[in-house]
């Protein structure tokens, strides 16, 4: 720690802190134009100059990259400094056109604010005008380099934070400007980070052009509803309509957003949004009023329940429900519908958490927070293309790679953006064999005697069984099965074992290749044996798919769970819940999503209530799902859009979007954050309102709440890990569970002091699989795109503009071998006769022998290819 004096205030800060950061901690503002805490200090604007007196000498130096030292006396606003800043601003204004009245940044322009603050009048220099690059063609983002002040923020954020490296300074001296190569329009992630950091109006989001001034907007802080990282959003509204989205710098994402978060929101205003409930009358869906629709749904469900009992009803929830809605949905299903048949995410996307993390470690959740990745030395990504699935988590890996020379080890069957980074190792595996690599790495480490056996025995049991089960997983065998060279597997194992901080990243989700319990088990074993669990910037990260994937699990949306991971078979837990819930809870485990569909087909399950999920488009084996749903007596779908599932329903209830409701989401690193209602003028009802209304009609009026805050109070009473959480405590950073009492600040790192189950369990590895070959030449990999996530993004006009549906990404060699040009239509056929026609596209992602088709687009019906146990299929590709 060092102590220094800034403007007479004494501050004690950590060693390595800059003078600027020390001043910020002391509450003293030093003006800057080129500083951001996410970026490496650059020192180009020279506005942060301060006078530092140390050892009897006074010198002027920039505060942003000089570290604070003991005994420094810093003056931030002397006469000389003010004069120097004024001069600096005048020099900036010399070539900055004063178009402020028409500039989109006016009011939010940091240069304008400083010019105002320092009372800069007409500069004494002749103004000069040169013409620079203007780009109006790019999606979402507008460049006008005539306004640029060369602070380099956009170039640096694109480089250091996003790793996209799209922008660069070009030309020299007075002609210097920021541009892409050859001044072409942007072709990047379109994250808009460059626009968000630009201190002036040189780079702006196009939508704000002519829409409104920043200070006119009504701002609401909320949480992003796309992926599971829980980025904080600020929704800016004008005339009760969202026109702008940004992120507060104080949130856990530090102001960074991806393309979906920043530009994906127009789906809220999509024309396809359902506004009125529909019920099936005479064979077709008709719009009716709310009372009629709710009565129809209540009667339909009651009719089935009264005839054949609650067990012939089923419910499928969604990881997009808020914690409160998921909790009430659980209560509704268990006590009003009186069934244990409750599931979400296809019943398998969360299985790695419940079947691998939970039994092995204690909690079915990721033990480390995503922010810790930036301090890792090695990051192993097993089948996790986080550039596409979780772009903001990718930023952490980029930061680790850029600043700490961390080595990404990518075990995947597609090339990702991270494979191009310096020091990366790319283990190109056959799809679905990622866990073989993990087990082979573990065996290599154990055989090499690189395990601290004593420390391990204190923390975990089952090591001998694990070692025995790994006998077959030699690097040579793994090489044969996965197609990766044995030498490379051994190198990956060595790099992982020898690293100081080594993190493993997995990504779960429906239809996601490699998303298996085996992989999660292997990853947990690997981390446990090498002592990486309970350690900062190490551990295993399982990044889930949807905004509240973790929360849906916490609230027990599974056939065998009650909120708080209590087993439904546990009598004490059932008693506790049934007392508060005012109703008996079924005693045994219910049906999983897959079993519900199987039983629907056989006629045992007769009514199904689907909330926020779209089984027809997103579950594997589309044909069977369609058949199962059509054999149901009564199907209710609650969704924002007319999805393929809603089309076959007997009743469709429209619901509110994330901007129209309040509640909480729990991110994949267990951070509970507020969702605040921004749009008030809407006819849509929230899922919560519908559950309570239906409960009242179905004879359970006691299921009612005054609002989501009251539900959180009830959750805090019943769910141990949420016990200390209340709305009043959820600030910009949220709270991370386990948070057990009102003074608990939450635990970002689990298992630091031990495991809640005593010792961790090492689970033996499965027998070595044999590669199967069904003769077809290519792998069809259902992939993820950063621009899309499913039914919401598919209806977002903005995301469709930058990424229209329907392309098959292929390797250049495969394209050549098939005689294809980019844009040619190809026909992809699988062994079971399913086929799809799409346009071929050259892509660096696709490796030889694979064709990548995004599975987000319902029109492609990609799930006609996949089976429940087989997310990857082999196909034949031919030219049409």
């Amino acid at each position, binding site marked *: 720690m060092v102590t220094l004096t800034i403007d007479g205030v004494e501050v004690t800060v950590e060693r390595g802190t800059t003078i600027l950061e020390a001043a910020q901690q002391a509450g003293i503002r030093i003006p800057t134009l080129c500083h951001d805490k996410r970026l490496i200090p650059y020192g180009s604007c020279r506005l942060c100059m301060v006078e530092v007196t140390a050892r009897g000498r006074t010198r002027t130096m920039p505060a942003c990259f000089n570290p604070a030292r003991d005994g420094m006396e810093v003056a931030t606003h002397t006469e000389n400094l003010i004069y120097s800043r004024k001069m600096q601003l005048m020099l900036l204004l010399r070539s900055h056109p004063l178009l402020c009245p028409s500039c989109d940044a006016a009011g939010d322009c940091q240069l304008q604010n400083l010019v105002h603050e320092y009372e800069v009048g007409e500069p004494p220099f002749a103004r000069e005008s040169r*013409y*620079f690059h203007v780009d109006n063609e790019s999606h979402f983002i507008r460049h006008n380099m005539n306004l640029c002040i060369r602070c380099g923020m956009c170039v640096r954020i694109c480089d250091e934070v996003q790793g996209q*490296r799209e922008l660069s300074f070009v030309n020299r001296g007075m002609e210097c400007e920021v*541009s892409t*190569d*050859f001044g072409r329009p942007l072709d990047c992630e379109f994250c808009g980070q460059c626009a968000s950091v630009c201190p002036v109006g040189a780079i702006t989001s196009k939508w704000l052009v002519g829409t409104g001034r920043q200070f006119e907007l009504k701002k609401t802080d909320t949480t992003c509803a796309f992926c599971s990282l829980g980025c904080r959003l600020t929704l800016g509204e004008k005339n009760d309509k969202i026109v702008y989205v940004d992120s507060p710098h104080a949130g856990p994402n530090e102001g960074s957003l991806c393309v979906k978060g920043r530009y994906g929101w127009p789906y809220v205003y999509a024309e396809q949004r359902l506004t009125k409930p529909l019920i099936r009358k005479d064979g077709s869906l008709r719009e009716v009023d709310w009372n009629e629709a709710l009565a129809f749904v209540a009667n339909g469900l009651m009719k089935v329940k009264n005839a054949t009992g609650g067990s012939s009803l089923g419910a499928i929830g969604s990881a997009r429900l808020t914690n409160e809605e998921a909790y009430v949905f659980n209560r509704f299903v268990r006590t009003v519908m009186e069934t244990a048949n409750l599931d979400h995410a296809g019943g398998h996307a969360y299985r790695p958490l419940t079947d691998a993390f939970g039994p092995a470690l204690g909690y079915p959740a990721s033990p480390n927070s995503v922010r810790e990745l930036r301090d890792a030395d090695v990051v192993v990504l097993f089948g996790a293309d986080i550039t596409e699935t979780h772009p903001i988590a990718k930023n952490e890996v980029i930061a680790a790679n850029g600043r700490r020379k961390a080595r990404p080890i990518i075990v995947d069957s597609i090339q990702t953006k991270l494979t191009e980074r310096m020091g990366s190792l790319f283990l190109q595996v056959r799809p679905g064999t990622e866990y073989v690599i993990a087990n082979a790495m573990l065996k290599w480490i154990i055989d090499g005697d690189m395990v601290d056996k004593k420390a391990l025995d204190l923390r975990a049991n089952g090591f001998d069984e694990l070692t025995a089960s790994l006998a077959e997983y030699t690097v040579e065998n793994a090489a044969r099965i996965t197609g990766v060279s044995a030498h490379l597997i051994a190198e990956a194992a060595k790099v992982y074992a020898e690293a100081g901080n080594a993190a493993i990243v997995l990504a779960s989700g429906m239809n996601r290749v490699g998303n298996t319990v085996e992989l999660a088990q292997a990853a947990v074993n690997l981390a446990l044996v090498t002592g990486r669990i309970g350690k900062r910037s190490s551990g295993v990260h399982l990044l889930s798919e949807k905004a509240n994937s973790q929360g849906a699990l916490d609230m027990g949306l599974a056939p065998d769970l009650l909120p708080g991971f209590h087993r439904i078979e546990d009598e004490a837990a059932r008693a506790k819940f049934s007392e508060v819930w005012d109703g008996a809870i079924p005693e045994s485990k219910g049906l999983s999503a897959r079993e519900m569909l199987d039983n629907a087909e056989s006629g045992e399950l007769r009514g199904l209530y689907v909330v926020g999920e779209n089984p027809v488009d997103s579950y594997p084996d589309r044909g069977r799902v369609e058949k199962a749903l059509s054999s149901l007596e009564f199907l209710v779908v609650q969704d924002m859009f007319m999805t393929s599932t809603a089309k076959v329903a007997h009743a469709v209830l429209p619901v509110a979007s994330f901007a129209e409701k309040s509640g909480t989401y729990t991110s994949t690193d267990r951070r509970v954050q507020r969702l605040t209602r921004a749009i008030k003028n809407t006819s849509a009802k929230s899922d919560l309102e519908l559950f309570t209304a239906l409960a009242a009609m179905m004879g359970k009026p006691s299921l009612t709440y005054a609002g989501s805050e009251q539900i959180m109070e009830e959750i805090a009473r019943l769910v141990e890990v949420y016990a200390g959480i209340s709305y009043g405590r959820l600030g910009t950073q949220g709270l991370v569970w386990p948070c057990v009492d009102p003074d608990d600040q939450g635990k970002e790192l689990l298992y630091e002091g031990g495991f809640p189950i005593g010792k961790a369990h090492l689970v033996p590895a499965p027998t070595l699989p044999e590669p199967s070959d069904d003769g077809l030449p290519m792998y069809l990999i259902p992939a993820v795109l950063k621009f899309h996530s499913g039914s919401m993004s598919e209806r977002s006009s903005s995301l469709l503009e930058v990424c229209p549906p329907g392309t098959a990404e292929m390797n250049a060699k495969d394209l050549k071998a098939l005689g294809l040009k980019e844009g040619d239509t190809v026909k992809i056929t699988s062994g079971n006769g399913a086929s799809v026609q799409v346009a071929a596209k050259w892509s660096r992602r696709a490796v030889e022998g694979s064709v990548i088709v995004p599975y987000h687009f319902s029109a492609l019906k990609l799930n006609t290819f996949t089976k429940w146990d087989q997310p990857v299929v082999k196909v034949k590709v031919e030219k049409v």
Partner: protein
Amino acid sequence: MEERDAILKKKREADRVIITPDELEQLDPVIEKYYGNPGYLIPALKEAQEIFGYLPQEVQYKLAVGLNIPASHVYGVVTFYSFFTIQPRGRHVIRLCLGTACYVKGAKEILEIVQREVGIDVGQTSDDGRFTLEAVRCLGACGLAPVFLVGENTHGNVIPGQTVKILDGYQ
């Protein structure tokens, strides 16, 4: 600003494939030498320019992939150094010194003569591909003022009237 946009667009059009993929193969030894090594960008660019005479889009993109550098950064470096050029140059590059000493000794007249007789302005290349004219700040040979280089040859103490005669020596 529209005018500027028009110029930019026109320029981009002109940049289009002038180098065929077969010709581009000449770059392979350079990439092999510096493969995946971003630190060697400048020697790689220099060698590429020695092969092609200039650094068009295709060459820059190929080097970017080969050396693992973003294309925007390669472009940034190419545009920074006056030694590198994106446009094809003439067979002979005239580097005319317009430093103070040369200027007062008549470099301006030499410039006017070149502009009139060869028909190119500073930074341009004659239509027959014979000359490219570049103006430089100082060649460090003020004792020889006015001075210019044609290719590697230095011509000092030039009397403006001799300019055409000197240039005639370069075909």
